[in-house]
C-alpha cells in the first residue's frame, strides 16, 4: 500500500471532507492507526491480480453441471452457492465491517416471503398470494428486504460486539415468531408452498442446469461486488471503521452512515440469495427463517473463514456436503455427531476457518503478494 493509493482513496468520496478539515497531521495519525489493515491493500487492479488458479476455479464452476449429475448440480451446487451468497453478506459485514449480524437469514427470508406473497404461491387453505408477474414480485421483494436490512442496520450500528449479535438475533427471532403467528400475511406455521422459479424466454429456471447458472451468476456478481467494494473508498473506510471507529470519526468519517450503508449493501446480497433460496426450496415457512438457519449461516461463514469473500462459498460447500452425506458415513441415528465433530475440528485447528489452512499451506511456499 503506497501513500499515493491512500491519498487517492481519501480524495474520492467521504475522505475528502476529512482531508480538508483535519489537515495533514491527522492523516499521519490516521495512517498509523490503520497499519493493521494496510497489509491487506495489496490488491492492484481487478485484472492485474488474475492468476491461473482463478481461471481454473471459474472454468470448473462453469463446466461443473456438464459432468455432475442433476442432483449434484442442483442440491449440492446451487444450494451451496445460494447459501454461500447469504454467508457472503455476513462475511462482508463481519469480516470487513466488524459487525456480526445474525439477521442476514432474516433479510433473505423477508425477500423469500415477498416472492411468495407478491408472486404466485399456494398457501393451502388461504388465498394470500397476489399473483403479480414474477419480475415485479422479485424486484419489490428485494427492495423491501433491502429497506428492512437498512432498518436493522440503523437499529444495531450503535452497538458493538456481542450486543450487535444480541440485537440482530432478537430481530431474527422476532421475525420468526411474526411469521409463525401471523395468519393474514405470512400464513402462520404452514407458510407457502409451490413458490416456483419462473420460465423465462422458454428456459424453465426450475430445471437444475438453468437454475445452477442463475445462482452461479448472482454468486459471482456478489463475490465481485464485495471484491470491488473492498478496494473502493467506501470499503477502505469501512475497514478503517472496523479497526478504529473513534479515530475514523475524528478523521471526519460518518461512522454510523458507513455502517448503515454496509448493512444495506449486505442486505441486497442477502435478499437476492433469499429469492434464489426460496426458488430452490419451492416453499417458505417459519422453519426457513428460524434460529437453526440463523445459526447455520454463521457456521457457514466461520467454517470457510471471514478473511476473504471466497470463504463464505467454501464454507457453504462443506456445510451442504456434510448435511447431505454425513448420514451415509456414520450411524443413521447419530450422524449429527459427524457434522458437529467436523465443525469443531475445523474451528479448533484453524480459528480462521478453512481459509486459515489455505494461507498456512501458502505461507510455506514463497508467493507474490501478501497472505490475504
Amino acid at each position, binding site marked *: 500500500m503506497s501513500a499515493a493509493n491512500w491519498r487517492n482513496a481519501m480524495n474520492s468520496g467521504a475522505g475528502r471532507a476529512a482531508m480538508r478539515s483535519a489537515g495533514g497531521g491527522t492523516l499521519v495519525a490516521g495512517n498509523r492507526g490503520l497499519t493493521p489493515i494496510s497489509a491487506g491493500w495489496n490488491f492492484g487492479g481487478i485484472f492485474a491480480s488474475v492468476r491461473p488458479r482463478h481461471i481454473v476455479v471459474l472454468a470448473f464452476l462453469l463446466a461443473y453441471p456438464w459432468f455432475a*449429475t442433476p*442432483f*449434484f448440480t442442483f*442440491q449440492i451446487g446451487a444450494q451451496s452457492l445460494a447459501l454461500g451468497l447469504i454467508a457472503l453478506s455476513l462475511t462482508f459485514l463481519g469480516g470487513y465491517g466488524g459487525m456480526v449480524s445474525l439477521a442476514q437469514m432474516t433479510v433473505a427470508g423477508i425477500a423469500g416471503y415477498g416472492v411468495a406473497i407478491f408472486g404466485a404461491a399456494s398457501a393451502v387453505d388461504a388465498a394470500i398470494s397476489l399473483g403479480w408477474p414474477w419480475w415485479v414480485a422479485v424486484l419489490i421483494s428485494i427492495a423491501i428486504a433491502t429497506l428492512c436490512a437498512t432498518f436493522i442496520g440503523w437499529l444495531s450500528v450503535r452497538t458493538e460486539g456481542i450486543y450487535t449479535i444480541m440485537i440482530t438475533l432478537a430481530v431474527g427471532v422476532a421475525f420468526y415468531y411474526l411469521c409463525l403467528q401471523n395468519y393474514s400475511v405470512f400464513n402462520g*406455521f*404452514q407458510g407457502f408452498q409451490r413458490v416456483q422459479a419462473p420460465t423465462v424466454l422458454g428456459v424453465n429456471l426450475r430445471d437444475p442446469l438453468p437454475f445452477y447458472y442463475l445462482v452461479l451468476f448472482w454468486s459471482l456478481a456478489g463475490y465481485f461486488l464485495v471484491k470491488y467494494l473492498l478496494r473502493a473508498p467506501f470499503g477502505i473506510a469501512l475497514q478503517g471503521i472496523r479497526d478504529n471507529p473513534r479515530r475514523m470519526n475524528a478523521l471526519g468519517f460518518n461512522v454510523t452512515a458507513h455502517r448503515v450503508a454496509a448493512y444495506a449493501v449486505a442486505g441486497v446480497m442477502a435478499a437476492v440469495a433469499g429469492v434464489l433460496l426460496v426458488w430452490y426450496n419451492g*416453499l417458505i415457512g417459519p422453519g426457513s427463517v428460524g434460529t437453526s438457519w440463523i445459526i447455520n449461516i454463521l457456521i457457514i461463514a466461520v467454517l470457510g473463514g471471514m478473511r476473504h469473500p471466497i470463504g463464505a462459498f*467454501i464454507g457453504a460447500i462443506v456445510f451442504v456436503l456434510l448435511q447431505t452425506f454425513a448420514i451415509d458415513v456414520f450411524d443413521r441415528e447419530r450422524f449429527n455427531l459427524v457434522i458437529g465433530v467436523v465443525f469443531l475440528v475445523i474451528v479448533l485447528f484453524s480459528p480462521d476457518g478453512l481459509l486459515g489452512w489455505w494461507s498456512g499451506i501458502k505461507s510455506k511456499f514463497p508467493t507474490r503478494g501478501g497472505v490475504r
Partner: protein
Amino acid sequence: MRRTFVKTLVATAVVAAFAGVAYAQQGQPVKIGLLATLEGPFAAGGADGMRGAELAIKQKNGMAGGRKIVLIKASSDAKPDVAVNATRKLVEQDKVDIMVGPLSGGEGIAVKEYSKTQPNITFINGSSGAQATTLVNPSQNFFRFNTEGAQWMVGLGKAALDRGYKRVMVIAEDYAFPYSQVQGFMSEYCRLGGKVPVKAWVPLGGKDYSSVIARIPKDVDALVVVLGGADAVNFLNQYEAAGGDKPLVGGSITVSQDILNYKGKRRDSLVGTIAGAPIADAYDAPEFKTFVADYQKSYPVSAGGYPSPSLFALVYYINMKAALDGLDLVKGDLSDGQKKYQAALQRMTLKTPVGDVKLDANRQAIGTTFITEVVKDKQGNLFNKVLRKVDGIDQMLGQPKEQFKMGTRDEPSCP
C-alpha cells in the same frame, strides 16, 4: 485448500456417477428410501416410526415380490425444506425405487409437491397427516395408506352427544393438524345438533393457559382439548389448579399413554375422557395383538422401544407394509415407470393390524378409527378402552364432495 476441495468434489461426483449406473430389473434388490424425523421436536416419534417400518420388512424376512429389500434411511427435523432435501438425495443420489416418508404434515405437502417431478418413482407417505396433501393438487404417484387428522376424530361427535355434552368449548393448538382434528369432531357434532360457542386457538408450545381457562363459559358441558405432549400436561395442571371440573373430550394425541402416566391429582379426573384415534392400545383383535407382540419382541424396552408401539410405529408399519404387499402383487415388477406397481397399490385392499384399508381416487386411505375412553385398571393404571370402532371413514368424512371444506380456524362453525 481450494484445489483440494475441487479434487474432492470431482472425486465425489465421479463415484456418484458410477454408483448410480442402472441395474437389471429382476433378481436385483429393490431399494426403498425411508424418511423420518431423527432430529427436532419429533425425534422420538421418528425413531419409533422407523422401528415400525423396519418391522414390516422383518416380518417378510427382507423379501417382497421375489426381490430382496434394501433399506436406505434419511432424517429430517420436521421442516419441509429439510425433508425435501433428504428425499431428493434418496431419490436422485441413492436411486431408490420406492420412497416411504415423511413424518409430519408440512413435510408431507412439500414431499408430495416434489414427487410430481419424479413420476417414475413411487412415493408412499410415512405418517404425515395434513388434509391438503391429498386434497389440494394431489400427485399421481404419492400414496397415503394412513388416515389423517380429521378422519381420526370421526365418531367422536356422536359419542360426545351420547354422553349429553350439548355445548362444548374447543381448546386446540394453532396449526394445521389440530384444525383438521377439530374439523373431524365438529363436522359430525354440529350436524347432529351440538353447539360450539367458543374456540380457543393457542400457540404450539404455550406455557400459560390462564387466559384460556378464564374464557371457559359456565354453560358448556365439556371441553374438547386438542393439545399434544407437554401442552396437554400444562393445560391439565393449570385447569386443575383453577378448580375446573368440566369433563374432557380428547384429540388423537391428547390422552396418549405418556400423558395418562403423568402424576397429579387431576389424573383421576381424566377417567371417563373420550377420544378418537387410529390406534388403541387395548384393541383386542388378533391381528393387532400379533403386531404388538412382534413389536415388543423386536424392540424390547431395554433396546429403546416403547412398552407398546406408538401411533408413529403403527402408521409407518402400515405404509411400509403397503409398499411391500404391492411389490408382492406385481411380483417385483417395477418396469415401465412403475405403472403396474402404482396401479396395484391403487387397487389393493391392505390388511393392517387395525382393519382393512382401501384408497380413494386421490390415493388417500379409507380406514378405521377407534373411539376410546380412559378407564382405571385394578392396579390403578389408566388406559384407553375401546368404546367403538368406526370403519370405512373417507377423507370427505361422509359428506358430499361439493359441500366439503378443509378445516381451518373458522371452518366448520356452529356457535
